Each structure stands twice: as C-alpha cells, then as structure tokens.
C-alpha cells in the first residue's frame, strides 16, 4: 500500500500551495495553542479575536512570540486525521447532528500534538472588573448549507455537556447555544463539524463591565475542515473566500 503511505506528503504539498496562494490574506493555523478570546483594548474597545501563543504553527512556521489575529485574518485548520465515525451514542448523535456511522471531525478538548489546540478565553480581561462572559453562537455557514456544528466538553464521567448545537439548541447546557465563563479564564472544548470544507462560525462575546456597562462584539471565525484527498480540488475555491482581508497583528511585550 505504498501509494497510501505517501498520501500525507502529497497532501502537504497541495496544502502548501494553497497557503502560498493566500499568504497575503488569512493565515492558516495548523498546530499549537491559541484562544478565541476577548480583550478590552484602548480602554473601551471590547475586542473578540484569536490570540495564538508562542510555538503555534501559522502558515507552516512556528510563532516565536504570541500574536493576535482578527477573526477574519485566521483560518483554523481541522485536519483529516480528526475525522471520526459517529459511534452509537444517544447523547452525541442528536447534539452533533451526525447520525451513527456518519463522519464527524472533532477538534479535541485535549491538547494533542500537531493540531490546533483551540481555547475559548476571557483571560485578557481584568476579572475583578467584569461579570461572567457569555459567548453566543450566531449564524453558522456550513460548506453544503446543511452541516451541523457543535461544541462540548466531557462531563468527567464519560458523558457530555454541550454548549453549542446547530442541530438542537435545546440540548445545550443553557438551552440557548450559549457558553458562560468567568472573566479571567480560559478553557478547551471539543469542536464538532459534520462535513468537510470551509465553515463560517459567528460568535458573539458579551459581558458587563463595572463602569463601561454592557459590551459585546460579534465576529465570524473560519474553520477549514480538511476532506478526503479526492475532495481537495473543491478546497481551492473555498479558501479564496478569505481574500481581501487585512491581517492585524499585535505583539506582546
């Protein structure tokens, strides 16, 4: 099965070509730790963005310091290796929208070498100044228009706590596709996608500041769910969505 064995290298070559073609636009985050998080910038700008940590792989290169990206300037890669077949699980199936035996790509809660380790964070906020932070799922655009996105954690006993579910919001912990976290923290979740291609996930972060009052920011994050090798051709067109976006970087001191 020599040809199969070589597939990863061939695919890497194809991916590199796409990355090169889009390097002036959105960057591709393929491995390492980063968070989708909120910060209060310039005293009044409640800013929901991606904060990637040192060592994260972006456009094939390890970051040598933390970097921040606006939501439109980063694409989060979900590699084919994360594709699983939905088990016969009566909790997972309705909440993820994947039927038994169907494919689901799961960006995992656990830190795994070689893939993005995506957190949801409020740690850039001064906790003593803020209420809890509510992240609300907005419009989700799946590649076919009928795919499902979900976000969950293990409950510690082998079960699940869902926070986002396009398939059935009533199955989420708060019943309304929200994730509520304390200010000043960060955590990791499983991100589930039922099909390959480019996903646009709209999220709103909102919280109440002691003096500034209610603040909120809505952003759309892009996830690139890598398909079977035969589907690569379709990806070229999808990645082109990202063109025309200016990249924003801030460096930590």
């Amino acid at each position, binding site marked *: 099965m020599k040809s199969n064995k070589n597939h990863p290298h061939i695919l890497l070559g194809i991916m590199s070509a796409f990355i090169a073609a889009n390097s002036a636009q959105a960057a591709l985050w393929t491995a390492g730790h980063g968070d989708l998080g909120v910060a209060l910038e310039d005293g009044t700008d409640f800013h929901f963005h991606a904060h990637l940590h040192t060592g994260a792989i972006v456009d094939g290169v390890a970051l040598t310091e933390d970097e921040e990206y606006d939501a439109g300037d980063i694409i989060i890669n979900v590699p084919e290796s994360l594709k*699983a077949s939905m088990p016969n699980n009566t909790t997972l199936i309705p909440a993820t929208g994947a039927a038994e035996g169907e494919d689901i790509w799961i960006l995992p809660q656990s830190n795994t070498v070689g893939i993005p380790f995506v957190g949801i964070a409020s740690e850039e906020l001064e906790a003593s100044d803020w209420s809890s932070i509510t992240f609300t799922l907005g419009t989700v655009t799946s590649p076919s228009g009928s795919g499902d996105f979900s976000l969950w954690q*293990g409950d510690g006993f*082998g079960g699940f706590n869902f926070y986002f579910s396009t398939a059935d919001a009533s199955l989420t912990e708060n019943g309304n596709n929200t994730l509520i976290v304390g200010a000043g923290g960060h955590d990791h979740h499983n991100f589930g996608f039922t099909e390959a291609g480019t996903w646009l996930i709209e999220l709103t972060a909102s919280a109440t500041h002691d003096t500034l009052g209610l603040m909120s920011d809505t952003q759309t994050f892009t996830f690139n769910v890598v398909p079977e090798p035969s589907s690569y051709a379709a990806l070229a067109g999808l990645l082109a969505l990202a063109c025309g976006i200016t990249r924003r970087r801030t460096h*930590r001191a």
Partner: protein
Amino acid sequence: MKQVNHILYLTRLAWLTTVLTTATGTATTDLQLGHFEVQIDYALSPGDPDAGWTFSISYDESNDFSTTDGVVRLDPATTTIVATPETKHTLSSSFQGLGDAGDSLWVLPQAHLEGQIFFGWRTIIPAGIFQKSVNGFFTPDGQGNIIIELVEVAGPAVAAGAKFAMWESKSVGGVEMHFNTADGIDDNDRLEPVPIGTHTHYNYGLTEPGNYEVTFRASARLNTWQSDGNTDTSSTSTFHFSVPFSSVATGNAELRLSLDDTPGPASIHPDGENVEYAPGQVSLVTQATEIGEILYPYAFGFDLVTDSSAEPHRVGLAGTQAVSFPAGASLTSSPLTILKVSGPGDLQIVSDSEHRRHFVFSAPGIYRVQVCAVANDAEDTFQGPDFELIFLAGLEADYDFADYADSFERSHGLASGSLKDDGSDYDGDGVPDLVEYQLFWEGFDPAIADAEKLPLPDPSEPEQLVVFHRDTYKDQINRNKENIVLEYSSDLTNWFGWSDDWTGYPLDQYEVSAEAGNAYGRIQRRALRLPTEAPERAFIRWRMDPSETK
C-alpha cells in the same frame, strides 16, 4: 447575567506592620479556585542528571501557557490542593472502581468550571535533551519526551481506604484512566509520552474526605549527544490534596474533654470517622431520639471521653497531642456544667442507661451552648476551660437565611420578618444581618449589637491580615450562592479579595488557610494574605456578592 449590586460595608482602617509584608516563594498556601498546574521543568545538570528536575505547582501571570513568561512556582511541599463543595458528586452508577451508585466522589475537573480548581499539567523542557520513548523503548530524538508515573498515594485518607485517580474525558464519550489506585498501582499508572512543552488538563477523583499525599515520578533518557548521554534520569515529588470533612456530627458523637486549652478544651469525634473537630468548627445536628421510652424530637447524645488518642485528621486542633485528662483526674458525677444557652428553646440534659448524655432541646432552631467539664482528683474538684457547642435542632448544616432569621427572631421574641437579607442591620451595630449570618462562627447574634466580634487584624498572625471562619454551606465559593469576600485596599479605590470571580495570585493578595489543625472541614478558618508590597496602612471591608443565578 451577574448583578453588580454587591452589598458593601464596614470599611475599616487597619494598621499593617512591616512584618506583615513579608512573603516567601514557598509560603504555606492552599488552592481551591483558579488555574494551576503540576509543573515539571528540566535543566541540564552534567554529572548529576537527576538534579536537573524541578517539580512545582505553577500559575501564569502572563496567561501564556506555552512559555516561561509569567510563570510563578509554588513548592509542592507547602501547597495543598483543596476540593470545593462544588466538586462533590454523588455517583449515579459504579464508576471505575472509585465507587458505586450513591457513593460520593470528589472530582477536580478537566474543564474549567465555576467554583472548582482548574488543575492541569505543564512541562517546560528544552528540545533535544531527552530521547523519544514509546512504551519504554527509547530512540535519540531532536525533541524528546518524558514519562510520568504514579508512584505512591498515601496519607490518612488513604490509610482509611480512600482512592485516588486521574483520567481524561474523551471527545466521543467515555474516559481514559491514566492513574487509578482502585486496582492498585502498577505499570498502567503511567503517562507516556508526555511532550516536553505541553499544557493539558485531566480529571482527578478522590473518594473520601481527608488528606492525600500523591507522589509522581518523572523520568526520561538523555540523548546520546548530551553529557551523561544515554543515561536514564528521574525524580519524584509529592503533592498534597485534601477533601474537607463535613463539619457535621449527626445524632451523637464522642465529646472528648480536656482540662486545659492545649490542643483545645474539647473535641468532637463523630462515630466511625477518622476526624475530630474543635467545638467551634462543627455543627451538632439533633435527631429524634427515644430515651427511657420518651421520644425527644431534638436530641444529641454525647459519650464523654477523657482518655482519647489523637485522630489522624484534626480540624481546628493543632499538633498531635490528644484531647484528654491528665493522669489522676476524672469526671465528677455531674461532669458538665452548662454556663449559657442561647437559642429559641430550652435545654435539658438527659442521661440514658449507657451513661450517654443527651442534650435535648424544646424547640427547633440554632443553639449556642457554653459548657465546661467538671473534674476532680485526689484532692480537689475543679472546672476545665469554657467552650461553646453549636447545635442545629431540626435544621441541617446548609440551613438558609430564612431558617437563621426564624431561629433568632424566636430566640429574641421578635416579629417574624424583623431580620432581613437585604443589607438591613436590625441591631444597628454596623454589621448587616446577612453578614452576621455568614459570619455566624465568629459568635454574632443579629439582634444584639456585637460589632466587636468582627474579625480584625491579628498581630499574632504575622503573614496574615484578618483571620475569620467561612462556612462553606452558606458560601459555597461558587456563583450559585451568595459569597462573602474579605477585601483589601490601599487607596479606597482598588479593592482586592478572593472569590470565584477573581482569586488573585497566591503570592500576592490571596486568601489562604489559617487552619490550626492538619485537615479541612466545611467550616474553614481563613486569612487574607497581603500583597508583597503592602503599604503600612490599608483598608479592609467585607463585600457580599449576590448569587448569579437568583
């Protein structure tokens, strides 16, 4: 959404001496809330590779969990990880040998959840020092990895049968057990490979209240091109975990008596438990009891003991000296003198045929009873020191403000509704009723002006500002019940306290244990640690945060 209408009151000026400002990197600290890690560092140590390992409990003031920036390390020997009330689960079915349906299991979760510690693992080791390993087989490698094993779980909880485990929640369901003492410790209690620069989280399970000493070993093989090349190196370190006891005795207990204050005038030992409590840190919950064919609805029975030995877990009792009488002294035939009873009804003591003394109350409510032991020796009859017992008649330890108000209103003959939880101060002493409820264990009575009971800086506590008792039934240090927060400020503008909303950092302003004993109960003795650069004078205040789920 959280309400921001905290109750703020009682700003007081506190004089701080310079002694108060000292803090060391390894000050005794307990961690109940916030994000911390088991941290493993390695630096090359030619000639003595085992000396290159450093274990610590770390936190990150930069919030960058990938680099060494902002990492602060605490000494595992002086740091205790404590389970909060929120971590207690009742199993719905048997789980991994850790318990069966109905059993309690305390879980420090893999997820960052409200009212619970978020305790992960982190390694910061330069690439290329160690070889790569797979199932114990090593090959030279430009990155390398380490191996972590569970070596031993000891401590008095474990001696009494408690189990410890660490596992991972899997994305598609189920769990992967990494360490589990339920089936003993063997080669399976192993994490391999652990990357050299990683940050990840697991669930921890503890099956019983008490203290656990958990020893991990980190090991690796040096790369061939390093000095001491191809040498195996390892190091171990012990981490301390503690699950608080209930701070409750129900129906009956041993009342252990002494004739001096060392380690205390008395202790309460619930039957069958490996803990004893100082009287000021335990609730005695009555039960309906038949004595001499009479059914008493609110009774608590004591077996009076004068020659106990120290329990392995002690809440509020220092050292290992037993609470017992000196040689030659014994109880008289009237062994207890009741000095004072505060509560909504009357107290009588009824003895049964087993010489058990039953404290019998005439009405439900909260009672404070001051007593002392009466003893004699060959020459004299004399009294031991006074102490106060807290009884809950017809109430459980998690009684709410309405129960509290009802009890004190009846005690003082007040109209129902006189005591309120809205910031009102019935007795006009400057301490609102709600705060007197939260600080019950300081001796407050909401219908008596007694502001002098408010905890103030204690010169005998050189590293701590104010020592007080937190009742973690009333304030469960989560966001689903109201919280009492002791705050500090040097400028009356910026206030710092400790709560699930904002814990601060352990070596700055931080709330830590001030327990006299070696163990925790749900009634906890706490202290606020000052910033390392504390000014000579500062303000303190108490803040009540409402429940976020009201």
